[in-house]
């Protein structure tokens, strides 16, 4: 509330949660991000009731001229399937798998970081060294090794992302907790006989919220790229499920004739990842203390 620091901006005396939302909505960055993400979410959710053609059934007639037309707005792929439908149905998988993977990874990572940061000592050393080992692995190699061994499926992609990203989330959480556990309100909680789990979940976790939500947003973006890469490497969801990365790969052979077949799914990936990144930036702005 003091207004006398060297760079005083607005007073922060009254800023309830609603004002925070208003700030998010006022930021152009966040708005564009929110628009891109919600576009895909809405389209994916409505996919079954949209007047789309089948994403799996080929239109043999269209194969002669696969370019975008009135019948197929974005054209058809090399097997004659409607690209628009495949993109929209592909969004369903991406928007299911990416947030799910990140959610699981967040749960594991936050638990690791919380325990390491709060207890410190040998517990911290153990968890941190273990994380370092995983983080030192080239992520892509890690994915390929994992998926190639346990086979491609949604669950396995979730497991792979969790192993790859939980250590990073753990580090962020650990850093936050190291600072927060020194706060006097944590001491006050100990003096009223709160147990450790309560202190972690109720006193510490809510104060990590801002950073972790921003990080989750960014991670969803990265995970979408990862899922794309896995698809491109043929480690994505098994065919004939529409998979953005798989769509790029299938049409690489005809890239110099029909480039749109690869470019369109690439644009889809870019727009969704960009959406999550911009949203993360906007949230970061709004949460800035």
């Amino acid at each position: 509330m003091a207004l006398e620091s060297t760079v005083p901006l607005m007073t922060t005396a009254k800023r309830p949660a609603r004002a925070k939302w208003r700030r998010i909505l006022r930021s152009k960055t966040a708005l564009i991000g929110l628009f891109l993400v919600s576009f895909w979410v809405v389209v994916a959710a409505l996919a079954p009731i949209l007047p789309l053609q089948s994403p799996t059934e080929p239109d043999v007639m269209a194969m002669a001229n696969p370019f975008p037309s009135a019948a197929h707005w974005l054209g058809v792929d090399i097997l004659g399937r409607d690209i628009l439908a495949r993109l929209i149905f592909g969004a369903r998988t991406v928007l299911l798998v990416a947030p799910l993977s990140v959610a699981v990874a967040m749960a594991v990572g936050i638990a690791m970081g919380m325990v390491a940061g709060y207890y410190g000592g040998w517990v911290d050393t153990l968890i941190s060294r273990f994380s370092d080992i995983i983080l030192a692995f080239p992520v892509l190699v890690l994915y390929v090794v994992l998926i190639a061994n346990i086979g491609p499926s949604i669950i396995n992609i979730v497991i792979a992302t969790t192993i790859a990203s939980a250590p990073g989330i753990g580090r962020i959480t650990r850093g936050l907790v190291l600072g927060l556990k020194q706060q006097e309100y944590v001491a006050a909680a100990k003096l009223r006989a709160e147990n450790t789990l309560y202190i972690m979940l109720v006193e510490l976790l809510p104060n990590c919220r801002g950073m972790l939500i921003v990080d989750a947003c960014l991670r969803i973006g990265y995970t979408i790229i990862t899922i794309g890469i896995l698809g491109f490497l043929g480690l994505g969801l098994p065919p004939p499920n529409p998979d953005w990365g798989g769509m790029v790969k299938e049409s690489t052979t005809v890239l110099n004739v029909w480039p749109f077949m690869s470019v369109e799914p690439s644009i889809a990936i870019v727009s969704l990842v960009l959406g999550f990144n911009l949203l993360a930036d906007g949230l970061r702005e709004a949460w800035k203390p």
Partner: protein
Amino acid sequence: MNMVAGQVQKSATHGASCATQEPLLEIRDLRIEFRGKDETVVAVPNLSLSVMRGESYGLVGESGCGKSTTAMAILGYLGRTGTVASGSIRFDGQELVGASPRELRQVRGRHIAMVYQDPMSALNPVRPIGAQLAEVPRLHLDVGKAEALEMARAMLHDVRLPDAGDMLKRYPHQLSGGQQQRVVIAMALLARPSLLLLDEPTTGLDVTVEAAVLDLITELRHRYQTSLLFISHNLGLIAESCDRLGIMYSGELVEEGATAEVFRRPRHPYTQGLIACIPDVGSDKHSRSLAAIPGHIPLPQERPQGCLFGPRCDDFIAGLCDQPDLQRDEAGPGHLVKCVRWREISRHAEKPNTQVHQSDRTQEAIQLHEVTKLYGAKGGRSLKANEAVTFNAKEAEIVALVGESGCGKSTLARIVTGLDRATSGEIRMADKNIAELQADERPKQLLQSVQMIFQNPDSTLNPSHSAAFSIRRSLIKFGLRKGKAAVDQRVRELLEMVRLSPHLAERKPDQLSGGQKQRIAIARAFAADPSLIVADEPVSALDVSVQAAVVTLLLDIQQVKKTTMLFISHDLALVRHVADRVVVMYLGKVMEQGTVEEVFSGSSHPYTQALLSSIRGTDPDRPKPPHIQLSGEMPSPVDVPTGCRFATRCHRKLGGICDQEAPPLRRLSATHEILCHIESADLQVDAVLVAAPEKNSGEPAND
């Protein structure tokens, strides 16, 4: 130019003759705004003041009153959002408002220099201080590198930094806070500026270091004939070091005049309130209670019409005080008051406090015996945070733990509450030894009986939860109330007890002021119905007017509840006001303990004497004892001096015996103990010398 200024200054140093002169700095009708995206905050609505050549002008006010903003405006550093909306700042005949960046650069550093509150952030951590100091004359005085370094060395000598040769090569982190601030002062003075802006220059420093830095500023000011604009919230500092002062409230000067005159006859109710709410050494809680100013400084957006102090003023009259365009009135020569009723209102008589009873119980509430805390440090050595600390506190008694930062008083607080574990020793409460029990090993009943009030209002409440959240949890965890309705009822009672409106209960901490948060923390501590409360600097982060209110409240509740309290503080005047008994600590060891009267009587440990001499009063008519200048800084607790710990800095050191032998414990009375080689009788004799005003002449010994 500076030479001329200096000579002119000599002929008219203080007082009335200044009036005929052209002021060095003249601020007229200054209005400072901060323009954000959706609102404009007027930090300073209208300010006029002037600083004469060679004068020391004090700008006093509480946080948020706009005093630092004013200093920044003088330097033209208002950031991207701040602007001087109207008015003028003239320095030495030159207009600074609207001056080009080039013109400003020539003035800054060269003619106007600034000393900031936090020296660590004022110095560049990656460059040695010699290079940083030499930059100033090279930039402003156009001298060569070698000459600049020579000037830096000479200036370091002037700010009494020992061993100046090697000092130039050190980095800021290798210096203590007091040394860093000396470097910053040296840097500010290198270009021989005619005006020095000091923004709370000693706030982060320990009292004994503060005394040394202030004496240094006063001495250098006279030597270099520099004018000072001294910004502080501490009235005592201003009283001691300024010729004239202005009292600032919510962006306005409410009173201005010669320092002695204002303190002798404060006219504005805010000034009167400020003076009344500082504890002074001459009184304790039995002789007077601190008068608190109700309410808080209005935010710039919510300034009332007319007198800004109106809503907090006892003498407010609607229709008179809320008229716009209040003018400043002359209450005496050069004494301006912005109050329409100053003639009618008299300074409220200090009300003696009759309610306070001395603790009459004799039962010991807590006994500490030889409590020692060691932390492992590098190379197998250990850091002694506490060594063989022994003292007791009786039921319903307030025992103050006093000492500078690093003396181990906070560590002791953590051990007593169970946030840390003692390495050895005993703490007995209700016939149990709790010294080695941490909070999670303590039975609930024990946890409940020892509660703590923390220092920092910004971290005492969880920002994610409502203000009443932790009070409620405390009631539930200790099973003091059952059922939601009963708990809520109790929360309301507790909030009323700390004089907060119950509707604040659901506010988030960032919507509360520092004083309100600290009241919530007090309510939380008392919610558990403890028998012992450890208060770790509970008011040191608060503004003076709020401080008084919170201390008074704490004392009232403690009186009613008969709670024993360990009151940790570095503020001796406050301790004098609050405590029944005092324990003085230095480097983890108790140097002296006794009743308040005994410790403050003057026949005390040399360290206590030094602390006492650093207390600043505002009464211009009371003779001020000279500051005792301690040499050097507190040694590291890893390298504790053998013999007496205080020997390296003691002004009364006897000689070799102090360095080699641990001092004996001298009992002056049943309650008064001193750890010193000096004979009790001699301690007494010297006390007279301390009380008598004896001028500290020449260079005080400082390494």
